[in-house]
């Protein structure tokens, strides 16, 4: 019996709804809340955006897939981690359709969804995962029924560091600040030495952000360096650190596969650096593009699918509905991975 799952994602500024049937993505529309240059997205406005676009995106997901609600077997949504207000707005919508259509409702860990989508798309078997986005920076490997976090940022996420730098130099947020930094960095060639903070398999970014913030406001320095040079220097430094901690984790775990997921993961320079590192140690890189790297609904559906067919297969409709809450803090290693071999 094929299992068709619809997934609702809205933990940050992207609203995505996707439909997946047994590992095949039927549809995956997304709408992003884009703020003007110099401004980040705030919880209240982001939640409002999600509520306004919910029905449009949902209709599009069903139309693109050529399915009706009767074809859906299960509804999945992001339980966390993420921003409170947007999470709630999406959870309410998912809970509503689950009850309207009388389908089981499954709450999914956002980070796990990224990993499972990456594994589905790239067919990587047991990779060391670098998960990099606006809110997360983690190096993850699987063992004994958990995705275990080996390295992590000890302060802000790498995407957050890039986003905030984009705000300082007033780069457009359309389609995303990271993408625009990447394009601008291609024009930079003069390297400014920035702090480099690796602590074992952990990293820290706040010192770098303050340093480059000061640099961008320093008129004498900016007579020598262009904003493009700063983007270039920032990217090179941040990504070197990320590749380094990933390599440390791979050496520590003896892993020969590496996968990048999360929004920052679609940066081609990061992918290129990771590939060189992987080749140097005879390992293989798996990466995806913006359709699946950036938050989307299909990834929630895919993780929900894995949970529904294994750990939750005997759960009742009422139990699942009872369990359908959401939380801003939800660690990757809290979830028991029932769908993989121990």
């Amino acid at each position, binding site marked *: 019996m094929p299992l068709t799952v619809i997934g609702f994602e809205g*933990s*940050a*500024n*992207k609203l995505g709804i996707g439909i997946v049937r047994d590992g095949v993505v039927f549809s995956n529309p997304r709408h992003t809340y884009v703020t003007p240059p110099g401004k980040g997205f705030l919880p209240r406005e982001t939640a409002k955006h999600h509520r306004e676009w919910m029905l449009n995106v949902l209709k599009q997901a069903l139309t693109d897939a050529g399915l009706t609600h009767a074809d859906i077997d299960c509804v999945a949504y992001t339980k966390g*981690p*993420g*921003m409170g207000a947007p999470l709630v707005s999406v959870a309410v919508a998912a809970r509503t359709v689950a009850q309207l259509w009388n389908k089981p409702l499954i709450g999914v860990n*956002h*980070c796990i969804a990224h990993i499972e989508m990456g594994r589905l798309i790239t067919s990587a078997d047991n990779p060391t995962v670098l998960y990099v*986005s*606006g*809110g*997360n920076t983690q190096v993850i*490997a699987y*063992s*004994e029924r*958990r995705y*275990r*976090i*080996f*390295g*992590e*940022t*000890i*302060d*802000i*996420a790498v*995407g957050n560091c890039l986003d905030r730098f984009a705000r300082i130099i007033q780069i457009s947020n359309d389609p995303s600040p990271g993408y625009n930094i990447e394009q601008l960095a291609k024009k930079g060639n003069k*390297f400014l*030495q920035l702090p*480099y903070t*690796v*602590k*074992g*398999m*952990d990293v820290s970014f706040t010192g770098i952000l303050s340093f480059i913030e000061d640099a961008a406001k320093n008129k004498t320095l900016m007579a020598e360096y262009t904003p493009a040079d700063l983007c270039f220097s920032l990217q*090179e*430094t941040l990504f*070197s650190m990320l*590749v*380094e901690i990933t*390599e*440390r984790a*791979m*050496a*520590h*775990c003896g892993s020969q596969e590496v996968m990048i997921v*999360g*929004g920052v993961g679609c940066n081609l320079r990061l992918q*290129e*650096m*990771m590939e*060189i*590192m992987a080749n*140097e*140690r005879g390992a293989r890189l798996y990466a995806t593009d913006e359709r699946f790297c950036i*938050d989307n609904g299909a990834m929630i559906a895919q993780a929900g699918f894995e949970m529904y067919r294994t750990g939750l297969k005997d759960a009742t409709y009422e139990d699942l509905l009872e369990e359908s809450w959401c939380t*801003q*803090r939800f660690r990757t*290693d809290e979830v028991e991975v029932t769908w993989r071999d121990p």
Partner: protein
Amino acid sequence: MNLLQQGAEARLFAANFCGRSCIVKERFPKKYRLQEIDEKLTKKRLSQEVKALQRCRKAGILTPIIYFVDTTRSIIFLEKIDGETVRQHIVSVRKMQEDSSYHSIYPMAREIGKILAKLHDADLIHGDLTTSNMIIKTSDNKLDKKTNEIFLIDFGLSFSSSLAEDKGVDLYVLERAFLSTHPNSEELFSVLLDAYKDVSKKSSSVLTKLEEVRQRGRKRSMIG
């Protein structure tokens, strides 16, 4: 020279130095990062490692002896320690016994705690504490009893600091690596910390910082 292992920072070769078997640690250029970044890091880490290895021995912490340093080619010739990493040791002990508990290795955890206390009391920060960076050497002594010695290795990220913050982060890094590498080892790690507390003279401020750093990790908003 035989390539033994390619770590994250360096290649390790087995070689011979004036009749003694040794490990050659070569920090080769990393092509993925800019030359400007690579050269600076390589140079800094080589000198940090050499300095720390010497200061550790002065503080009475077991580390490999340095035989020779070639700064132009970024190579260190080190004493070869016969033994297995603490990581391998824990994994194999756990496989051998029937239950999956860690009780039999509590003495080793206590020993590690004591070593780290000594390290931090000498104002040295390792910077990359994991169970892969500790080697356990078992030797038979005269009374037919086995003794275990634990060596610390891989000091490339080390530095000297008297700040409780740096020491706290050092322990935090170990805690994270420890718990993710060895599932359900929370108790074992607390045995290690207890030993640290007993031996270190400045443990209270360090452990308060450790708690603070842990909170920082938890409080961090995790979006998208």
